[in-house]
C-alpha cells in the first residue's frame, strides 16, 4: 500500500514539476528579452586562422511570433533584411528589390549562425520541457521541439538559478547529435529592468576550429505596429531606427 501511495504521489507530482519547468522556461525567455523590443546585435564569425567577419544587425520583435532584422554593416550586406512571421521566413536584398522565402536552417551570414539563431522566437514558444534536473546552482532543462519546422529538435539548457538565465545551451538533432553549443556570458544591465547576457559565443563540432560570437547592445522594450512585420514593410525597416 505504501508503495502504491508512493507511486500515486510520484504520478501527481510529475505533471506539476513539468508545469513548473515550462513556467521556468517562460521566465528564462522574459529575462532574456521583453515580449516586444528592439536591439542591436553584432555577429562575429571567427575562423581558425583568427580572421573575423562582422555583421551588425538591428532587430525588432513583437509578441510571440514576429521578428525582423536589418543588416547595418558590412557595406556589402547593408540594407538586407529578414522577416519571420510564425513559421514563415523571408529575405529581402535591396538589389533584387523583392523578398524571397527562406528556411530556418539556411544562413544569410555564413558561419555557425543560421537564420533561426538570428530570428529567434521565445524558447517556450518552440519547445516543451521534457525533463528538469537540479544540479545545485543550476537547472538543466531538456527541451523538445514542438514541431518539425523548428531548427533544432532538442535543446539542453543550463539555467542559473539565481538569475534565471541560461549559461549554456546545446542544440541537438533528433538522434541527439550535437549541432552547436551556445555560451551565454557577460551579464549586463541594459536598463528598463533588462539584465541579461550581453554576449553569446557559439561553437560547433560541424565547424571545427570556427566560432561565432553574438554581442547585444541597446536592448529596449518597444512596441510596434503589426504592419511592421509584413513583406511590404521590409524595405522600410530602417525607418524604425531612432537616434541613439
Amino acid at each position, binding site marked *: 500500500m505504501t508503495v502504491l501511495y508512493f507511486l500515486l504521489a510520484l504520478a501527481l507530482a510529475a505533471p506539476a514539476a513539468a508545469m513548473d519547468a515550462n513556467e521556468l522556461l517562460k521566465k528564462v525567455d522574459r529575462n532574456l528579452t521583453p515580449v516586444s523590443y528592439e536591439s542591436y546585435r553584432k555577429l562575429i564569425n571567427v575562423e581558425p586562422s583568427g580572421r573575423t567577419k562582422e555583421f551588425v544587425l538591428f532587430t525588432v520583435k513583437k509578441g510571440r511570433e514576429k521578428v525582423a532584422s536589418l543588416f547595418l554593416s*558590412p*557595406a556589402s550586406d547593408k540594407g538586407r533584411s529578414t522577416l519571420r512571421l510564425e513559421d514563415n521566413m523571408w529575405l529581402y536584398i535591396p*538589389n533584387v528589390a523583392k523578398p524571397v522565402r527562406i528556411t530556418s536552417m539556411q544562413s544569410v551570414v555564413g558561419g555557425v549562425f543560421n537564420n533561426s539563431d538570428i530570428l529567434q522566437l521565445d524558447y517556450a514558444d518552440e519547445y516543451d520541457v521534457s525533463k528538469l534536473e537540479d544540479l545545485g546552482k543550476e537547472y538543466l532543462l531538456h527541451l523538445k521541439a514542438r514541431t518539425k519546422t523548428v531548427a533544432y529538435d532538442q535543446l539542453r539548457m543550463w539555467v542559473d538559478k539565481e538569475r534565471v538565465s541560461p549559461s549554456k545551451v546545446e542544440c541537438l538533432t533528433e538522434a541527439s547529435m550535437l549541432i552547436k553549443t551556445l555560451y551565454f556570458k557577460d551579464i549586463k544591465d541594459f536598463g528598463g529592468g533588462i539584465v541579461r547576457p550581453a554576449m553569446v559565443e557559439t561553437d560547433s563540432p560541424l565547424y571545427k576550429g570556427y566560432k561565432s560570437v553574438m554581442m547585444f547592445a541597446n536592448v529596449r522594450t518597444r512596441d510596434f505596429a503589426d*504592419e511592421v512585420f509584413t513583406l511590404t514593410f521590409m524595405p*522600410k525597416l530602417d525607418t524604425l531606427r531612432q537616434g541613439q
Partner: protein
Amino acid sequence: MSSLQRLFAVFLIILNAGVLPAAEYTFDLSEIEKKPYGFGGFLEFRPVLFGLDREAAFYRIRYFDQEQESIRDDYNLGLRLEGSYEKGATGLFFKSDALLNYTDDDWSDDFKVLEGYLALKPANGFSLNAGKRVLLWGKGYAFNPVAFVSRPKDADDPNEALEGYYVIDADFIKSYDGLLKTLAFTPVLLPVTDDINDDFGRADHLNFAAKLYLLFWDTDLDFMVFTGSSRTTRYGFDFSRNIGTNFEVHGEAAWVIDFQEKFIDNQGRLTTETADVLQALFGIRYLTANDVTCIIEYYHNGGGIGVDDAENFYKFVDRAYDRYLAAADSSQLFRAAQLSRGTLAAARPMRDYMYFRASIKEPFDLLYFTPAFTSIVNLNDRSLSLTPELAYTPITNLDLRLRCAFLAGAPQTEFGEKQNNYRLELRVRYYF
C-alpha cells in the same frame, strides 16, 4: 601572357588577400548611430573574355564588315553610388551606375540613374513614393511574367539591380490575426512621354497598375493588373509557399490582352497578329541536407517566337551573309539586324524554357565560398547555356566571382546562333 592567363593571375592574387589578425570583441555604439544621411556603393572591375562563333548568325550581323576574330576581350570599370537623406517621415533616395568600358581598342562610358525618388511614410501602414523606382513584382527567380511595371531581369544574373521607371506609387498595409495575416495594396501611376519612360511603350499616356498582396494560410498571394495605352492591358497572379522546412514552390501567370505576336517568313519579312497570350512560370526551391540550394523553373512565354519562325530568321541571315560575300551587298544584313531587334535579339525570345541553378554553401568548410552551376534550356529548339561559377568573399566587403557561360546548340537554334560560344567573366567588387 594571354588574356586568359592575365584573368587567372588577377583572380589568384585577390584570392590570397591578406589575413587580418583577430581583434578583441568590441561593440562600439558609434557603429549603430542613426544618421539622417547614408552613402555607399561599390567599385567594380569586370574583365570579360568572349569566345566568338564566326559561323553564328548574330556574329555575322554584328561583325560582318570587321576583321574576323575568334576571341574578344572587354574590360569594365564600374562605380555604383547609393545615397539617402531622411528627416522625420520624409526620405530622399538615389542609386546610380557609372561605367567605363574598353573593348576593340576603344573606350566608352555611360552614366545611369537607376533610382531617384522621394518617399513619405506618415504611418507604418501607409507610404507614398514619387520618382524613378524599381517595382519588381513576381515570385520567379529568373523570369517574372507579372513584372508589369519594371524592366525584364537578366536571367543570367537575376540578382543584379535594374533601372527603374518614373512612377508614383503607394503602399497600404493591414495586418490581421487568423488565416489571413497580411493584406497590402500597391497602386501605381506610370506616365509615358517622349522624355519620361519613353522606352516603356507608346508615348503621351498615363498608365495605371496595381497589386494586391495577401499572406493567407502561410502562402504569399499577389493579384496584379496593368492598364493604359502605352501597353495593352494585362492581369497577373503569383504565389509562393513553403511545403516543408526546406521546400518552397512558387508560380506566376500573366494574361496579356491584344499582344502583338510576331512571325517571320522565309523571306525575312515580319508580320504580326493580335492575340491574347498566357505567360506563366512554375518553380521550386529546395535545400538539401548538405546545404545545396536547387532552384528549378519552367517558363512559358506565350507570345514568343516559334521554332519555324526562328529558323526562317537564321536562314535569312545565312543568305544575307552569302550575298554580302558574293556581291559586297550588306543591305540584307542590315535588314536582318533591324529584324532581330524586338524578336530574336531580345532575352528569352522563344516560347518555353527551363532554368536550373544549384549552389553549395561553404563546401569543405570553406567559409564565404559558394560554387554554383546554372543552366538555361530552350525547350523548343533544345539549345542551352551552361554556367559554372565560383563566388568567394576573402575579406569583408570584397566579393569575387568567376564564371564561364558555355552556349551549346545546333545551327538555327537560339544558343547555337549567339555570337559567342563561351563567355568567361571575372567580377571583383569592393563595397564601401
